[in-house]
């Protein structure tokens, strides 16, 4: 431990338990900070611990359960959680990086920028691994369209996703949009990206090699994205500047330059490690890359501090966009389109040239050390000196198992009108016109789904998006899916069905499901009934992933999705969104969704479960729309039968027996039949 204690900067508030609590730290967590440092933290150090131990970065209330999900598989290059995005081997020397993440709360504040920066962030998670993004998907949930505020949010989110993805030059090829009152105050905006990388060219998020240069590249740093709650600067800074913005602004143009420059830099072989700056910006990338380096060094320990790697950086060198930024602000800023790179000592010049060519900021701000610390200087003084390992997930960050208590949702199954009283034609047309069922062309036509000329779905609708891989006969199938009503009615079965439906959509194209990423959108984990939903859904997902041999390669957890009306707080339905990829060895054998020739036989394939007919309606869109009731449980479901069905679909496709195949899900059989009849690009309706 160096002798001089890091100095607090003159105008910072006095660090104590109250300030720690206002930063979201619990009392026992603050005690642990004092124990780790052996002294009171400086204001900047408190900021660092508060973001690193926030739910978003540490997964403290979910990691214990997530560990039970199947995370390894023979096709996986990097085990889940070790890299930003899981990598799946697809042959031809190629691997697929894919991940899904949520940007729910920023989108509720500013829909356009919230959604745009969500898309930007997930693309960086992919190209930070050296992979070129080849497709984007999304999963959106809003309140009912009858509300003006919901229409405002929907329009802003869709335009944000489109503008960012279109300008960045990645096709947006699939997604889902659901409308339900439970999302009124808290929309869900989940963005997914899929990228390709050659096996040898994968980049790692690690800081190692003493003396190697630490560089910050991309946009300059401003005060955007520093969360109000953990930011108490109004009192301390006399300047009456506009209130600190919590809105992060995305710049797809700079991101496209950052993509090309990053891939070019990685190709030189001089990049030792690289990580994008997402939540908690510089703080998160410095600590996670250092902790990874320490873990890989298998190094020793000095005075209880794990050594072998670490970082020393000087904030005076960080390119800033606003003057007078404090160390706290620079370390916590979430300005977009920035990466942290560890460059081989002596080779940083070549990398700086590349970023200069692409007209991007690129500055060496420090070097790799071996003492196990993240040491931060500002205005010549040490403002933070924190051991890296205790900061990070899997290192010293807290892990909690919360209390889980089932609270049956108060739902019922309505008395159904007798058939002879029903005008079936009117009911069917009404169902087909329901927002959750009707075509979403008015949304996805705002996305460029064709750039990079690999989108095979344009020659005719398919149940999962199909992206051809140039230079091979192969195509990737990809889909996002989740029926949150089923999870609300029965979290375990609902979690299983979410994975099964995604896999079924992929199998309908003839492709073989390979791997899963997930975005778990839930309420407040400190409420036992919410934690029960979370635990059961995760267990259900795990069971299904094991059955389909689709390991989970990583993902994201978003808690506290709830809306307040008056003092009444209602959580959103438990929404574990599944993002899945599959492989089609021969793209020419792709099976599309729509009927092709008059006279072809129509088959309904699946297990005929012996439940009374009416129970098949439970949890259905029809029951909710026609009777305003959810029913009592998720529909009957058999995991074995589902696996056999999907294996059959792939077999029939390979033998060219199938003219088309379409999943029977929301809206039931009648909707599936209608979709098979009309859903085709060439039909100019």
């Amino acid at each position, binding site marked *: 431990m160096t002798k001089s204690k890091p100095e607090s900067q003159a105008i910072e508030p006095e660090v104590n338990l109250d300030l720690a609590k206002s930063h979201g730290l619990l009392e026992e967590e603050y005690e642990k900070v004092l124990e780790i440092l052996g002294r009171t933290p400086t204001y900047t150090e408190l900021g660092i611990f508060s973001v690193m131990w926030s739910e978003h970065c540490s997964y403290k209330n979910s990691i214990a359960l997530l560990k039970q999900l199947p995370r390894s598989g023979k096709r996986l290059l990097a085990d889940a959680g070790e890299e930003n995005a899981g990598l799946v081997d697809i042959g031809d020397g190629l691997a697929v990086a894919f991940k899904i993440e949520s940007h729910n709360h920023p989108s509720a*504040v*500013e829909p356009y*920028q919230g959604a745009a920066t969500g898309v930007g962030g997930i693309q960086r998670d992919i190209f930070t691994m050296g992979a070129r993004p080849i497709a984007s998907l999304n999963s959106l949930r809003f309140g009912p369209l009858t509300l003006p505020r919901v229409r405002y949010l929907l329009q802003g989110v869709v335009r944000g996703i489109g503008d960012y993805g279109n300008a960045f030059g990645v096709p947006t090829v699939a997604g889902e949009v659901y409308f339900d009152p439970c999302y009124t105050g808290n929309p869900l905006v989940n963005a997914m990206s899929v990228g390709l990388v050659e096996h040898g060219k994968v980049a790692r998020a690690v800081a190692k090699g003493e003396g190697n240069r630490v560089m910050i590249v991309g*946009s300059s740093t*401003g*005060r*955007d994205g520093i969360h109000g709650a953990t930011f108490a600067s109004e009192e301390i800074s006399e300047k009456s*500047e*506009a209130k*600190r*913005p919590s*809105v992060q*602004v*995305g*710049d797809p*143009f*700079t991101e496209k330059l950052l993509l090309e420059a990053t891939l070019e830099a990685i190709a030189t072989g001089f990049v030792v490690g690289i990580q994008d700056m997402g939540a908690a910006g510089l703080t998160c990338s410095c600590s996670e890359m250092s902790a990874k380096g320490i873990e890989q060094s298998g190094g020793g320990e000095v005075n209880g501090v794990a050594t072998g790697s670490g970082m020393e950086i000087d904030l005076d060198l960080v390119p800033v*966009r*606003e003057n007078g930024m404090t160390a706290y602000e620079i370390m916590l800023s979430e*300005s*977009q389109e920035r990466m942290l790179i560890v460059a081989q000592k002596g080779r940083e010049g070549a990398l700086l040239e590349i970023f200069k060519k692409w*007209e991007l900021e690129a500055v060496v701000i420090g070097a790799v050390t071996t003492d196990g610390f993240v040491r931060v200087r500002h205005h010549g003084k040490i403002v933070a000196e924190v051991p890296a390992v205790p900061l990070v997930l899997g290192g010293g960050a807290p892990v909690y198992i919360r209390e889980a208590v089932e609270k049956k949702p108060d739902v019922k199954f309505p008395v159904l009108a007798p058939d002879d009283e029903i005008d079936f034609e009117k009911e069917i047309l009404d169902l087909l016109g329901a927002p959750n069922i009707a075509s979403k062309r008015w949304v996805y036509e705002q996305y460029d789904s064709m750039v990079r000329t690999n989108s095979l779905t344009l020659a005719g609708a398919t149940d999962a998006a199909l992206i051809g891989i140039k230079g091979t006969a192969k195509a990737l199938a990809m889909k996002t899916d989740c029926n949150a009503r089923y999870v609300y009615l029965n979290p375990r079965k609902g979690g299983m069905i979410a994975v099964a439906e995604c896999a079924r959509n992929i199998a309908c194209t003839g492709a073989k499901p390979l791997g899963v990423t997930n975005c778990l959108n839930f309420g407040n984990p400190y409420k036992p009934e919410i934690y029960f939903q979370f635990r059961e859904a995760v267990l259900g997902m795990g069971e299904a992933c094991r059955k389909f041999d689709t390991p989970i390669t990583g993902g994201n957890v978003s808690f506290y999705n709830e809306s307040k009306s008056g003092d009444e707080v209602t959580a959103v339905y438990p929404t574990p969104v599944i993002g899945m990829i599959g492989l089609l060895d021969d793209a020419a054998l792709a099976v599309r969704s729509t009927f092709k020739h008059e006279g072809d036989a129509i088959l309904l394939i699946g297990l005929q479960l012996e439940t009374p007919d009416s129970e098949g309606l439970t949890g259905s869109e029809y029951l909710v729309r026609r009777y305003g009731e959810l029913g009592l449980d998720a529909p009957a479901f058999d995991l074995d039968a589902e696996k056999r069905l999907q294996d059959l679909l792939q077999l029939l496709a390979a033998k060219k027996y199938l003219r088309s195949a379409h999943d029977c899900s929301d809206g039931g059989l009648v909707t599936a039949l209608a979709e098979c009849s009309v859903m085709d690009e060439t039909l100019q309706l």
Partner: protein
Amino acid sequence: MAYRAKIKITLRPSILDTQGKAVHHALESLNYQSVAGVRIGKYIELEVAESDESTASRITDEACKKLLANPVMEDYSFELEQIGQAN
């Protein structure tokens, strides 16, 4: 009698102006080195068919708050100018 409201809508100083950044860069490459900063916003003209200025001002202010300016990221200001008949 009518008024023309001349409204300026600008990004708050602390919000990153990506467009301004790109245009500033372009002006530099046209070697207008003395241009030290560029910020880009919207200019909106409303024709308000009201006889007295205070009503016209109230309507303009409400229009800005409710629709024209995004309160999360933008500030607005306006002047009123008397014109003949609103066409």
